[in-house]
C-alpha cells in the first residue's frame, strides 16, 4: 500500500472527508451509548446542541477553546522548528503562578498598566522555563521531549508546594489555592454574566500575530528552515541555536499566556487543577491545524466543541461522562486520517 498525492483536491472532497470523520465519531459514540443501554438516536442532536445549540453552549465552547488556542499556538510554533515542546502544561502553570504573584495586590496599578505587565512577566517566565530544555538541547544534546515532559511533573509539584506554602490563600481556610487576583488584574468578561472573557480575544490576536510571524517574517522563515533541515540551515548562515532559542522563548511565552488567561479571565485564582491537560491537548490542536496558526483557532474550537457537546450529551443521555473524552479522541484520530485522505490517494500496489 502506498500514498500518492492528489493533484488538485476538489472542494467537495476537501469537505467530504472531515464530514466523514465526524460521522465516524458519531457512530462510535452511538455504539457506546447503545452499550450503556441508552438510545443512540439523538446522539448527534445532543452533541450539537451541547456544543453550539444555544448562546450558553457556544460561549462555553469558546471559553474552553481559549486556553487550547494558546497551548496550540505554543506547540505549533515549536514544532515548526522541530523543537518538540511537550511541556506546555508546565509553562501554562508557570504563567498562572506569575499572574497570581503579581496580580494579587503586589502591584497596585490600574488595569491598563497592570495587565500588560503581568502578560509580559508571565510570558517571560514561560519562556524561561522552556529555555532550560532548549539550552540542554543545543549545548548538551539532551532530548527535549524528555526534559519538557519531566518538567511537567516537576512544575506541578512546585506549584503544589507554592500553594501549600507562600502562595496559599490566607482566607482559603487551608485549601491549597492562591488568593484571588485583584479586580485590576482581571480580564473582563465579553458578555456580562457569561464566562467568555477577553482572554479569547487575546488568543485570536496571538493567533493572528503568529500567523504573521510564520508567514511574513524573517524569524518565521528561519524557524521553518531550522525545522526542515538544521544542517543546511546552519550552512546557509542561519544561526540555528539562536533560532531554536527564540523559538523556545516564543513557544514558552505563548503557553504561559494560557495560564494567565485562565487565571485572569476565568478562575481568578490558582489551584492545582487549573488545567485538565490543556498543555497536552495543545499538541493535538496544533497538529490537527497542521501547525498553521490560524488553523489552530479552528481546531481548538473544534476540539473544545466536541468535548463540551459530548459532555452535555452524556448527561442528557444518561451515560457515563467519560464518553466525552472518548469522542474527543475518536474525532481527533478520524480527523487527522480524513485530512490525510483528502490530500492523498491510497494505491494498493
Amino acid at each position, binding site marked *: 500500500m502506498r500514498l500518492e498525492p492528489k493533484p488538485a483536491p476538489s472542494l467537495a472532497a476537501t469537505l467530504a472527508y472531515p464530514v466523514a470523520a465526524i460521522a465516524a465519531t458519531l457512530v462510535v459514540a452511538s455504539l457506546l451509548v447503545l452499550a450503556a443501554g441508552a438510545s443512540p438516536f439523538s446522539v448527534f442532536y445532543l452533541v450539537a446542541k*451541547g456544543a453550539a445549540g444555544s448562546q*450558553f453552549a457556544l460561549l*462555553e465552547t469558546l471559553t*474552553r477553546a481559549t486556553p487550547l488556542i494558546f497551548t496550540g499556538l505554543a506547540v505549533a510554533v515549536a514544532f515548526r522548528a522541530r523543537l518538540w515542546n511537550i511541556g506546555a502544561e508546565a509553562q501554562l502553570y508557570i504563567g498562572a503562578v506569575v499572574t497570581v504573584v503579581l496580580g494579587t495586590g503586589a502591584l497596585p496599578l490600574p488595569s491598563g498598566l497592570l495587565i500588560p505587565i503581568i502578560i509580559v512577566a508571565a510570558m517571560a517566565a514561560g519562556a524561561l522555563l522552556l529555555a532550560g530544555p532548549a539550552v540542554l538541547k543545543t549545548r548538551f544534546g539532551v532530548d527535549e521531549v524528555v526534559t519538557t515532559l519531566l518538567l511537567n511533573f516537576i512544575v506541578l*509539584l512546585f506549584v*503544589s508546594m507554592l500553594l*501549600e506554602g507562600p502562595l496559599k490563600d490566607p482566607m*482559603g*481556610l*487551608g*485549601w*491549597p*489555592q492562591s488568593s*484571588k487576583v485583584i479586580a485590576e488584574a482581571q480580564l473582563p468578561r465579553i458578555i456580562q*454574566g457569561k*464566562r467568555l472573557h477577553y482572554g479569547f480575544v487575546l488568543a485570536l490576536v496571538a493567533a493572528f500575530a503568529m500567523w504573521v510571524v510564520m508567514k511574513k517574517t524573517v524569524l518565521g522563515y528561519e524557524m521553518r528552515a531550522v525545522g526542515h533541515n538544521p544542517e543546511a540551515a546552519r550552512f546557509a548562515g542561519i544561526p540555528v541555536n539562536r533560532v531554536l532559542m527564540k523559538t523556545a522563548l516564543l513557544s514558552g511565552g505563548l503557553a504561559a499566556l494560557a495560564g494567565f488567561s*485562565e487565571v485572569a479571565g476565568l*478562575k*481568578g485564582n490558582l*489551584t*492545582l*487543577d*487549573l*488545567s*485538565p491537560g490543556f498543555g497536552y491537548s495543545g499538541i493535538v490542536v496544533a497538529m490537527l491545524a497542521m501547525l498553521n496558526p490560524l488553523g489552530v483557532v479552528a481546531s481548538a474550537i473544534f476540539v473544545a466543541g466536541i468535548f*463540551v457537546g459530548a*459532555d*452535555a450529551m*452524556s*448527561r*442528557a443521555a*444518561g451515560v*457515563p*461522562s*467519560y464518553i466525552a473524552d472518548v469522542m474527543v479522541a475518536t474525532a481527533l484520530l478520524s480527523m487527522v486520517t480524513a485530512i490525510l485522505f483528502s490530500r492523498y490517494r491510497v494505491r494498493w500496489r
Partner: protein
Amino acid sequence: ADPIKVAAIYTVPVEQQWVSRIHKAANAAKERGDIEYVYSENTSNNDYERVMREYCEAGHKLIVGEVFGVEEAARTVAKDYPEVAFLMGSSFKPDAAVANFSVFDNYIQDASYLSGIIAGAMTKSKNIGMVGGYPIPEVNRLMNAFMAGVKESAPDTKFQVAFIGSWFDPPKAKETAFAQIDGGADLLYAERFGVSDAAKERKVLAVGNVIDTQKDYPETVVASALWHFEPTLDNAIGAVKAGSFKADDYGVFSFMKAGGCSLAPLGTFEGKVPAEVMAKVAEKEKAIKDGSFMVEINDAEPKSS
C-alpha cells in the same frame, strides 16, 4: 409527593472515599423514593460551573457537590438560579446573600479522635505511620484529631506523616506505607487506598477512615472513623421539600452528635482491644455527644514527629 430531582457533581470518580459516602447517601434516598438522582463524576474544576448550569437548566431542584477551588463561580451560579437549592462541600461559611446555597464538610473529627484513642493503645512500638493524598483541610482535620486521640492513650507516640501527591495511586500509597513500616511503624492510619494492604501484608494494624473496610481486612483494621452523609443529605432534602431551604452550614450534621460520624464496630477485634481503653472511648463518646467535650478542629498540615 413527587421525588425531588437531585443532581450531584463530583470532581473525582465515585470510588473516592469522600465522594463515595455522598453517593451512598444519595442512592439510599433514591431507593426510598425521596429523590431522583443523577450525577457527573470526574468533572474538572474547569468544567464545574458549566455542568452546574446545565443541571440547573435541566430542571434539577437540588444540586450536591464539592466546590473547593470554584467557590466563587459556584455562588454566582446559585445567584442565577434562586429556585434551585445547592448543597456543596466547601471550606467556607454560608452567605445570607446567596440564600439557596448551603455548605457542608466532613467534620468527623469526633470519630477520628476516638479511633486515635484505640490506636494509641494498640501500637506497641509507639510509632504510627500516616499516608495522605494531599494535605487539604478535609484530610488534615481528621489526621490531627486522630493524633490527638492517640496522645490521649499513648502520649509519647511518634508519627510518620507522608503525602503522595495523588488521590489515586494505591501502589504508591502502599509503597509509602511499607516505608513507614520499615521505619518502625506497627500501626497505620489509612487515609488512602493501599495503606491497609501494606499493613495486611506486613501483619501490622491499620485504622480506617471515612469508610469501613473491616470486612476486607479482618486481621488488620482495628477501628475506623466513619462518615455518614445521610443526616446532611436527608436534612437538605427535607428542607427542599418543605420549601425552607436556606443558606445554612450543614457541617454540624457530620458531627457525632448529629449521627454524621461514628466509630465503626470493632468486628474481629471485638475483645482484642483492652477493656479499659474501650471504656475510655465510651466515656469520651458520651462526653462528645452531650456536648461536654469538643474535639478540636485543626486544619493545619500535620507533620512527622
